[in-house]
């Protein structure tokens, strides 16, 4: 009886609509990015937009196939997906092709597979699988340890390629863990550490330590009646100061030169618009010159004439900003925001905790890409080479995001059932 239902029974059409809109916007912007007014030509399958068209079609087919599968399939086979992904991540280090310093691609015929993209959904699945099947509580140390290990294995393998951007993606899953009961302090501490990191790089560390000690003394003075908090405050201050001194060391010794440069550019410590800051500068020029209404489709001079590097992949948002202006940016950002909020709502309406955790995983990963990618094009975060979901050119990333999303759609369509 169930098998006779349409694959689209009970699916969330809002999400599908947003998905299709973003794919379409992506395709037009890729077309604009590679468009050369001297050779306007018709649709050509050898160009990026021609290929992207094929990718979109195949991604949609892939999505339909996922909807046809049984929803139990994903929860049951989560460990298998995870295992295969880890295997591929090991394999890519051995037989992978090195492109631009990253050994991230496994060549299969004329086509290149990027295992790190598929690690995204398989890691979400395994996390959901583990948390939903265990009896441990999120605030238990063992539970956190196993979750961290599950995340750390793919992350480490990706770091070996090395593809820091993709590896950092997995940190976003902290939102999923938070929803499942991870202490909110973790988020606060994370935010404080990031702030301290930035402050350490921007201002003199001794001055910073002085300010922190001063503030601590002030706090202790104000709350001098209650002795209960003195000890934890002093401990955390000590940790914080230790962190500050570690930052410099790590910054100078662990980060690679280009990573350091990218951070310096963002912080304004390095002004090199022709060299290290070239990407960012050109990207800001392209987006900033769009104005309110944009220059119009195919009229963006900055993207059309190759001033922005990587403009169909990581910097695709430049084309949006330049040709469609603030209005276009607003539309795209809104679509993402609606999608993210919708996914959270969908996750919350699941009866099965597996589906809920997975839903939060999807939202976390999409959010991370959305924020980091657009943020880097406008100079809010350092340049990190990760794609903009559904918009950026590239088969692997489109497919992996499609799989990520459509598994959720499938789980959701079956939300009344039991997994």
């Amino acid at each position: 009886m169930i098998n006779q239902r349409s694959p689209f029974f009970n699916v969330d059409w809002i999400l599908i609509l947003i998905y299709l809109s973003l794919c379409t916007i992506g395709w037009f912007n890729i077309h604009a990015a590679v468009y050369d007014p001297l050779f306007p030509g018709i649709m050509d399958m050898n160009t990026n937009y021609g290929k992207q068209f094929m990718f979109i079609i195949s991604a949609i087919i892939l999505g339909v196939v996922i909807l046809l599968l049984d929803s139990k399939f994903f929860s049951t086979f989560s460990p298998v997906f995870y295992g295969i992904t880890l295997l591929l991540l090991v394999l890519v280090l051995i037989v992978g092709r090195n492109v631009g310093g990253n050994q991230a691609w496994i060549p299969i015929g004329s086509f290149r597979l990027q295992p790190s993209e598929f690690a995204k959904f398989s890691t979400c699945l395994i996390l959901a699988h583990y948390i939903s099947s265990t009896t441990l509580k999120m605030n238990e140390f063992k539970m956190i340890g196993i979750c961290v290990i599950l995340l750390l294995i793919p992350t480490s393998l990706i770091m070996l390629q090395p593809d820091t951007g993709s590896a950092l993606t997995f940190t976003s899953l902290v939102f999923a863990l938070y929803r499942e009961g991870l202490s909110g302090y973790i988020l606060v501490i994370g935010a404080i550490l990031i702030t301290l990191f930035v402050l350490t790089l921007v201002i003199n560390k001794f001055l910073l330590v002085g300010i922190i000690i001063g503030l601590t003394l002030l706090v202790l003075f104000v709350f001098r009646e209650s002795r209960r908090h003195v000890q934890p405050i002093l401990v955390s201050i000590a940790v914080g100061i230790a962190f500050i001194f570690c930052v410099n060391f790590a910054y100078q010794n662990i980060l690679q030169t280009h990573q350091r440069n990218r951070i310096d550019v963002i912080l304004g410590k390095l002004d090199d618009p022709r060299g290290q800051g070239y990407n960012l500068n050109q990207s800001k020029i392209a987006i900033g010159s769009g104005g309110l209404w944009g220059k119009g489709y195919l009229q963006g001079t900055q993207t059309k004439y190759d001033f922005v590097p990587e403009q169909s992949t990581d910097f695709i948002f430049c084309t949006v900003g330049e040709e469609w202006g603030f209005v276009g940016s607003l539309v795209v950002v809104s679509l993402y925001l609606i999608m993210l909020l919708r996914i959270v709502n969908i996750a919350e309406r699941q009866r099965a905790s597996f589906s809920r955790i997975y839903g939060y995983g999807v939202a976390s990963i999409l959010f991370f890409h959305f924020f980091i990618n657009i943020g880097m094009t406008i100079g809010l975060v350092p340049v990190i080479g990760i794609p903009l979901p559904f918009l950026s050119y590239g088969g692997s990333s489109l497919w992996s995001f499609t799989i990520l999303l459509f598994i959720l759609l499938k789980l959701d369509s079956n939300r009344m059932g039991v997994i």
Partner: protein
Amino acid sequence: MNSFFQRKYIVQGIFIAVALVLLARLFYIQVIDKSYFLSANNNVLRKVVIYPARGIILDRKGRILVQNEPVYDLMVIPREVVQFDTLEFLRLVKLDKKGFDKRLTKARNFSPYRASIFEKQLSAQTFAAFQEKLTQFQGFYVQKRSVRRYPDSIASQFFGYINEVVPSDIIKSKGYYKPGDYIGRTGVEKSYEDLLRGQRGVENQMVDAFNRPKGHFAEGAYDTLSVTGKKLISSLDRDIQILGEKLMVNKIGSIVAIEPSTGEILAFVSSPSYDPNLMVGREKGNNYMKLLRNPSNPLFIRPIMAEYPPGSIFKVINALVAQQMGRINAETRFFCPGAYYYGRRGKMGCTHAHGSLTLAQSIQFSCNTYYGNVYKQMIDRSGMRSVNAYRKWYDAVNHFGIGSKLGVDMPNEKKGLLPTAEFYTRHFKSDRWTSTYNISLSIGQGELGITPLQMANVVATVANRGYYYTPHLIRGIGEDHIVKAAYTKKNYSGVDARYYGPVIEGMFGAVNKPGGTAYPIAQIQGIEVCGKTGTVQNPHGENHSVFFAFAPRINPKIAIAVVVENAGYGAVWSAPIASLMIEQYLRGKITRPKYYTDRLYNANLLPGHKAKQKAAPRKQTDSIPKIEIKPIVPVTTKSIAPHDQST
């Protein structure tokens, strides 16, 4: 659902907050901060200036005097330069390694991405050799520009020259000129700069990140075409200009010929001259410095800048003014005993004891005594105080264009010198002076300064019997032959036409009648030339030879003034030169014997040149004034004045 359901709102809140931060930032860089828009244009737009060809200049018969010749600026885009055979390159462009490195560094400092001029104005030959191998030198290309070319190498001071603008030009033009532009510095090039320069065009070219051209911005909607400079039709006659310059070789002086019926300048010779082509091309700077250091100062535009006492040609003016004042008429006779005696011991010598002369004869023989008397009549016997009579005389002379600028369409014109009554009052510390105090003015000596152009203008006025048109160098602009309105207006001399008769009669006699000062040396068979010689006292050396004339007597076609410095009598050098010019202009050829022309061509009258050719036997001498009063102000040759150079 579990107990952490509320956390949904925290997570969604974070998503919304981040999206708002992104939007705020986007709003700032896209809508509020306009600087990115400019940066984008900077990235992609290259304004390519299309230089128009400067207007060409023709002679009065449509023959080309100034044209344009293509030259080739070698451009470089440093970023695109790749390893190449430097030696071959240096050989082709004729540079040394040091110069090469210096230029490349300069270009790189300007911009590694944009083209800058590597070497200016390659010659056609260098260009041809270079062009063949251009593909070997990536990053270099050649841009065509045009420079001036003067096919006959004549009239350099007339045309003037152009050179690159300096910062003060750019400021003065309120930014019209851009560095690297050319501007007319002197002569016609300067006074007609606005017409000659044409209109620059601008192409808004789009380039990609690699500086490759990508077509025109907005399909060329904002591009402007360059407009070639206006063609100027000058008043010069190429043939007599060439003849005049040939005649003035190795002489210092000027020839100015004017068409009396229009005021158009037919010949404008300033000697010593230089080849105008020297002021063009890569050697321009060196050539310019050489000319600047030349002691005879070829850059000095003598016809409008050199001021001389006119000498005896001034008698023509005195004769006219005295008649108009009613002090003399055609029949007035004065007796010449060989000198004019004045005051207690004053004596102004005359060449001969001419006896009793009429007005016409006084011009013909150039009698000093006669004009001493004429001047006395005007200043002392007019029924008013001398100083007031002098004021009237001053005004009358000034009406002939003496002592003020004529308004020729050329920069740097000098107004000359005509002393005012106040000048003498100041000098004599009293206004009770009389004609005896400045009697030398009667014969054009003393404190007078007249440019050759003013001389020619006076004789044109005589030819017209009472008026002149402001002399000008350009008779037509573009295809329309427009002449400025100012040049079609008659300027009256204030002397009635009937008073010119006897003067012209005398000038005719001076050339055509035995005893005339320029007879027969300036006489032309079949053409009635009317002229007057002058010899200008020069306390620094040999006297200056002056002659002015017009022809033919009826319906005059040409009025001419010739000044040859340090050449002696007017009749010896200036008169024959003027005569040849007149014949060439009216007949289109010269019919004089070879010895006559060779003497003029070959003479070297430069100061310090010892082997000075002596004059051919003369029938009649010019009036040699022996003025015993000292010139109050030694107005002699102010010719070697520092040339006003703006560069």
